[in-house]
């Protein structure tokens, strides 16, 4: 009964070959997967290679990317933010109430749109700070904290509107998310900022150190509590920006906006390669992760598969990403 084989030998057997190892370790691994998928599935998908579809793909990918970037920042610290979808809903409702001519009272003033946007960002940031405060100062697990926030904030947003959508938003506001070029410009700018923040700033280094080992970070003078609060605040603000886009695209403030994207967000980040156990993650990875998830979403939609099939396939892809994540960590632990 050879129940426990020699461990190192066994680990060696499951390790992939050198070429596959290099590919796994590359930043562009998921981009490669995207290209292979496009070439394999694209030609058989009616209406895939059309400009309209490309624009559609882009306009739905942009807000998702913003939320995913925020989620990535939280994941790097070793946490998770389940409340992002509720933040999107609450921000949408708040912004719409401020800008609606009847409820807002600003009535077509020049400042309506900036006031609405600032209100949305502020709400996102405050909810994020509350999350971060509970996680860092009260030492509660991020999963429970943000789950509670998701339910509480989500319920609050519905209560605020009494389940009614709020229309009649200023057209300048709707253009922010509805006009793909503007949305693209804003997203690129934000992605660049996050990239600089992670790779080139002191805060970025602190973020990774906190994710790797909060005790070592604390003893090395990293303000761990502040870093955590800032990370959740970033996630909240980025969700708020995504809410600006979604609200603009729908031309409606609604508490259930973006309610179904939570798994897409976490899935995209993890597919990209950010580790659920903290300490690893890059903006580029998340961009590719979002792209991959959106490609699957888009092609399966065009093939007019049911929402159930879509969900099953997405689930399988996320599982595959988790397997790849485990493989990558093992490759990283065994330098060739």
């Amino acid at each position, binding site marked *: 009964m*050879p129940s426990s084989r*020699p461990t190192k030998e066994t680990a060696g057997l499951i390790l992939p070959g050198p070429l596959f190892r290099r590919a796994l370790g590359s930043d562009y691994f998921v981009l490669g997967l995207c290209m292979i998928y496009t070439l394999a599935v694209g030609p058989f998908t009616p209406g895939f290679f059309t400009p309209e579809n490309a624009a559609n793909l882009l306009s739905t990918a942009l807000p998702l990317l913003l939320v995913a970037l925020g989620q990535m920042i939280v994941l790097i610290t070793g946490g998770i933010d389940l409340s992002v979808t509720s933040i999107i809903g609450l921000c949408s409702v708040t912004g719409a109430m401020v800008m609606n001519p009847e409820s807002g009272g600003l009535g077509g003033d020049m400042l309506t749109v900036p006031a609405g946007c600032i209100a949305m960002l502020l709400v996102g940031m405050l909810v994020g700070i509350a999350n971060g405060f509970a996680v860092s100062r009260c030492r509660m697990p991020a999963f429970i904290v943000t789950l509670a926030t998701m339910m509480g904030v989500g319920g609050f947003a519905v209560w605020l509107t009494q389940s009614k959508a709020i229309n009649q938003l200023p057209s300048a506001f709707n253009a922010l998310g509805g006009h793909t070029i503007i949305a693209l410009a804003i997203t690129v700018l934000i992605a660049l900022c996050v990239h600089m923040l992670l790779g080139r700033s002191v805060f970025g*280094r602190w973020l990774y*150190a906190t994710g*790797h080992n909060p005790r070592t970070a604390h003893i090395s003078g990293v303000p761990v509590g502040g870093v955590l609060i800032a990370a959740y605040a970033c996630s909240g603000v980025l969700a708020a920006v995504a809410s600006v886009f979604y609200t603009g695209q729908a031309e409606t403030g609604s508490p259930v906006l973006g309610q179904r994207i939570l798994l897409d967000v976490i899935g995209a980040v993890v597919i990209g390669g950010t580790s659920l156990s903290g*300490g690893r993650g890059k903006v580029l990875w998340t961009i590719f992760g979002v792209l991959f998830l959106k490609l699957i979403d888009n092609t399966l939609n065009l093939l007019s598969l049911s929402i159930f099939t879509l969900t099953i396939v997405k689930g399988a892809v996320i599982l595959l990403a988790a397997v790849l994540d485990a493989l990558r960590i093992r490759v*990283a632990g065994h*330098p060739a």
Partner: protein
Amino acid sequence: MNAMPAIEFSGISKSFAGVRVLRGISFKLGAGRTLGLVGENGAGKSTLMNILGGNLLPDTGLMVLGGTPYTPQGPTDAARAGVAFIHQELNLFANLSIAENLFLSALPRLGSLPWIDRKALHDRTATLLGQVGLAIAPDTLVEQLSAGERQLVEIVRALALEARLIILDEPTTSLSVRETETLFSLLRRLQARGIALIYISHLLEHVRELCHDLVILRDGEVVAQGSIETYDTPAIISAMVGRSLTRLYPERRGTSTTAPLLEVRSLTQVHIVRDISFTVHRGEVLGIFGLMGAGRSELARILFGLDTAQHGEVRMGDRVINRGEGPRERMVRGLAFLTEDRRHEGLCLEASIADNLALVSLRQHARTPLRLLDRNTWQRAISTVRAAVRLTEKVSDAQSVQTLSGGNQQKVILGKWLLAKPEVLILDEPTRGVDVGARFELYQLILDLADRGAGVLMISSEIEELTGLCDRILVMSQGEIRGNFPRAEFSREHLLAAALPREAHA
């Protein structure tokens, strides 16, 4: 004397990815005898013992256990053959009781029912614990035991499996002096019962105290073997490092001054430390000796702001450090702290060497208005400090620190703090688990720092190390300072006498 050797290795070789870590290892060990296995980190001790314990397969070579060929395919085979391996990091389940840990693979059952026979489990465990003189209830959870008691439970587990050969890897690193004595008296009883022991340790005095035979490994080869009496300590060390180390401690160039750097006045925290007062001077290496549980580490944690004290005052230079100041503020004041737990408190194990080195001094490289890091000055600082701490050249900056040996990991932590240019460096057991060669280099770095005018507060459980390095030694016991010895008065006996706890008078 038993004629049949308990274990015989002949021509054991092993390579990993083309690198030979063991070359033709041959030696034997008689039943009831104890073999000290020594060598620097990376000499191949762990690999050899993992082969013996069934965790690894040898490429070539034979092992004969008690007269029969022994080819374990896994740890289960090894256990069945009577070989027990007690690892440095213990393999007990902290959330289970002693009894459950001992019989985990063969829990006694009520007849053929799937229920555990609690009474039989309890009784059998009590018998075994009685055999080693451990007076603890079998139902005690392992998490409630001290490090020393856990070590004994590991040995009891080996006995429960009727082991004939027990491998002990650095068993005393986390034990107090008294616990070590208990362990050694138990090991002597095992010797008397004819059980063969292989004892791995960097502490040569322990090896000398316990072992009959000695095998010295270097670069995967046996460089010396024989009866322990034939080797004196300098001979063992020079065989281990492959050159003769004329001295164990580097020469001190500078001297201590009388200018105070860190002043501690009547620091008190109930049940932890009481009325602690001392001063670290510029250029001074001040040692703190004490037994496990004397309050030394706790004192260091209070000084660095990781724990709080109820009373007392800490001053750096001419400024009082506020009680509420955390590590971050104290770092800015010029304090640095190398904790005793390098894996969990000193390093980010999965992160790169460069990231670990830069962690405390990041802000020096972010002077632009946007606080972005300047990669050039950052890289230069890392290269400089790598050279300063003499980190092995074989590794790249991007490699994760978990791939380094203990000594090199410790150099990374020391390098990290050197980059912060500390005024006072607090070191808690800096050489634990570090081999002789790397120790010398760490000592050199510590003395260099003092020579440049910093103050060093060094906590250690090894008297030799403290007397070899320090200008002055404080002795702590039961949370109080019980002695203050200047260099001229260093004596092993006096230090140890001051460290022993007093019986409660009042």
